[in-house]
């Protein structure tokens, strides 16, 4: 017997929806084994990870807060991936956006600057993210450099730049030498939605981004161009769609969204610029994009799910002493299964006996 992959005639819609669920199921099974190996009760551990955070209001808000950057970044990435452009450096674009926006916050600190500050910060963050993403995109278009490598390498440049700024020029003089800027002024802070809560305006912006992406992909000619270039490059050229232009466009948009997410995170939940503002949002968003089928609504759901793993991971560390890195392991395994299950969409498994069975007509 032999297992072969056979191409499907038409893409199966059912499988497209079921595949991520299968991936999640397989991940949970694998995690249970891992918990058992770590000497924890798998059932309790999974409960702490995935059920407990859903049972109290504070955690629910926290999930939305964590999902906000994930969803915004993943939406941008999905545009790139649909167009066959591989932006792996959203983490760097996120950081650069945070830095650029913070620059305005730092410069206006303690002045009479009015309500223009926050909008200006958001614009600066988005613009910086877009420009930063255009570097690998231009290298790809002009010189044929692999955008996968260049975008990834620029993550570390952004990381070190941020580190330098908060340890040097922007360090809070009253901050006991901690590498951080001073707490941003109220006009430089993203407002919360519920008084005393954690949920902030950024979550609304993320929802708007999801809706906009849906309209873009489903209803506009630009979205159509992005989709065709990815699945049938030659037909796209025949259609008059310029692949290079679309690489630049999708990189710029995804960079802008990552940068925007970055400045929202800093000006919102964190409140100042410091190293470690991202637990790897830019990378986790890659998983979100694929788990969400590169579909805006799917990404919204996947973003909430992965935010849950961050919160669950924190609680598991506190209550069960499970290392925080297990969350990363979980996310890695999930990406692996998602990509594996994706094959099921274009192909199907078939059991084939090595030699064809010739059944004698029994009569």
């Amino acid at each position, binding site marked *: 017997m032999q297992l*072969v992959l*056979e191409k499907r*005639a*038409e*893409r199966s819609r059912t499988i497209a929806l079921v595949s991520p669920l299968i991936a999640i199921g397989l991940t949970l099974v694998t995690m249970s084994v891992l918990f058992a190996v770590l000497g924890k009760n798998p059932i309790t551990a999974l409960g702490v990870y995935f059920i407990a955070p859903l049972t109290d209001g504070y955690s629910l808000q926290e999930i939305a807060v964590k999902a906000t950057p994930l969803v915004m970044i993943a939406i941008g990435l999905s545009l790139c991936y649909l167009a066959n452009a591989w932006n792996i450096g959203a983490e760097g674009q996120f950081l650069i956006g945070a830095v650029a926006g913070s620059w305005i916050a730092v410069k206006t600190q303690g002045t009479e600057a009015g309500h223009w500050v926050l909008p200006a910060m958001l614009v600066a963050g988005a613009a910086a993210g877009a420009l930063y993403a255009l570097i690998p995109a231009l290298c790809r278009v002009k010189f044929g450099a692999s955008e996968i490598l260049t975008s990834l390498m620029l993550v570390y440049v952004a990381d070190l730049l941020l580190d330098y700024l908060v340890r040097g020029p922007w360090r809070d003089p009253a901050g006991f030498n901690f590498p951080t800027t001073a707490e941003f002024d109220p006009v430089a802070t993203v407002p919360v939605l519920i008084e005393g809560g954690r949920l902030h305006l950024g979550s609304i912006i993320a929802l708007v981004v999801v809706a906009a992406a849906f309209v873009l992909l489903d*209803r*506009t*000619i*630009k979205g*159509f161009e992005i*989709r*065709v270039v990815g*699945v*049938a490059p*030659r*037909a*796209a*050229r*025949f*259609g*008059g769609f310029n692949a290079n232009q679309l690489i630049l466009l999708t990189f710029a948009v995804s960079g802008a969204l990552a940068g925007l997410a970055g400045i929202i995170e800093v000006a919102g939940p964190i409140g100042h610029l410091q190293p470690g503002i991202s637990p790897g949002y830019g990378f986790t968003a890659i998983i979100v994009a694929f788990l969400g089928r590169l579909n805006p609504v799917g990404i919204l759901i996947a973003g909430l799910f992965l935010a849950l793993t961050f919160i669950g991971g924190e609680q598991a560390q506190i209550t069960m002493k499970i290392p925080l890195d297990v969350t990363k392991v979980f996310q890695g395994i999930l990406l692996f299964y998602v990509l594996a299950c994706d094959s099921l969409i274009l192909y199907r498994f*078939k*059991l*084939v*006996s090595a*030699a*064809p*069975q*010739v*059944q*004698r*007509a029994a009569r």
Partner: protein
Amino acid sequence: MLDPAPATPQTSHPLLQTVGLTKRYGDFLANDSIDIEIFPREIHALLGENGAGKSTLVKTIYGLVQPSAGELRWQGAPIKLSGPAEARSLGIGMVFQHFSLFDNLTVAENVALGLDGKEPFKAISARLADVARDYGLPLDPSREVWQLSVGERQRIEIVRALMQNPKFLILDEPTAVLTPQEADQLFVVLERLKAEGRAILYISHKLDEVKRLCDTATILRGGKKVATCNPKRETAASLARMMVGTEIKEVKPPAERRTTVPRLVVNDLNLAPSELHGISLRNISFELKGGEILGIAGVAGNGQDELFAALSGERLVKEPGTIIIDGLACGHLSITQRRKMGAAFVPEERLGHGTAPRMRLSENALLTGHAAGDMVRHGFINAAATLRTVDLTTETFDVRKAKRDPEAASLSGGNLQKFVVGREILRGPAVLVVNQPTWGVDAGAAAIIRQALIDLASAGAAVLVTSQDLDELIEIADRIAVMFHGHLSEALPRADATREKLGLLMGGATLEKEAAHAIGA
């Protein structure tokens, strides 16, 4: 047993038999309880209109499609094929209507991927060259597929199938894209395979060919078998009648078409190839008036693809005045801008070039329709308008499909061709550039398409048709030029364009004479 044993058709048993074979796609019956028998040492034709279910039937025999009901028998014994690998191991080979080749791999690598055994690559390469030479199908094993013409690609598929030494070979419309010479070469190969005792199942829309070559013909209509006959005892008309159920209309070129101003002018077009083995276009000049159809004949791979790329704007030329559409120099303008000027284009390859295979027909209507018309308003897609184009094309060109708006790849080859051509004609272009307009289209639909091209010209459009089918060009074109080694010959008026003259030009015969003229002048 592995060697195809000689046998006489009368006494032998069928090599392959289908009994009540049925294939359903949803509510749609692509094959409806089909019984056929195929004997060794026989060339068996499978005939039918576009969408009659021919490809579906042979894909089932090759194990690619699972039947919904009925059974297959191989040498009398029922078999269940769970995939093509099993079919191949029985000795069934197949050459597809749409090729399954990897563009970025070489000929030899593609062949190696398609073989099941553990033969080393070097040996495969050598054997490939041997088989190709032996059967007179020249192929360079080290060339990459993306550089090859459709005719050459098909050769790969045929040689790949032959390398498996099949007892039963299926060919799905092999001659659709071949020149008469290439087709003749193929018939020699097929006759030889038959003499070697193999069975051949042969799908074609070219009935003359079938009468010449085939011993038996099975005719499908609407998924059902309607007859089995000896094609040599039938006429092309009687075969067509069985396929369609009614008589086929003749294409009537209007007695006289009035030509107007030049609408497509090409001035001394020279273009270096964009790829290693491409053909460079040399001094191509012609003028095409409104109301006129210019035919371009020639063996595939003589620069037709390059000319198409330059005319369509897929490749730009530096000097704008090299290509003039309706009086406007547009060599530097993109394909979208040229479409806005009223030009329309139909490439040779319908899957992957003319359409995105995995997208719906409405989306593929948008692919070329977005430039002009009402499909896009302020950047937003008007879904109703794209569907209208699908419906209109379906109706006008009789595109048969299982549902209203399926993926392009699920259409039968000929029906997709009708869609791709119809989509452009219905835009009412001023200039239409079309490559192989009736590739793989059945006689009835071919007549509809040719008539539409003639009507388009009669309405004042300039139509440029590139085709390997000389009969087609002689039937519809007012003038015919021949492409050879990137050079376009002087266009002959239809009255002068005999098969013989064109054949000579296609072999490059007059090139030297012309050169001598040029020096003498």
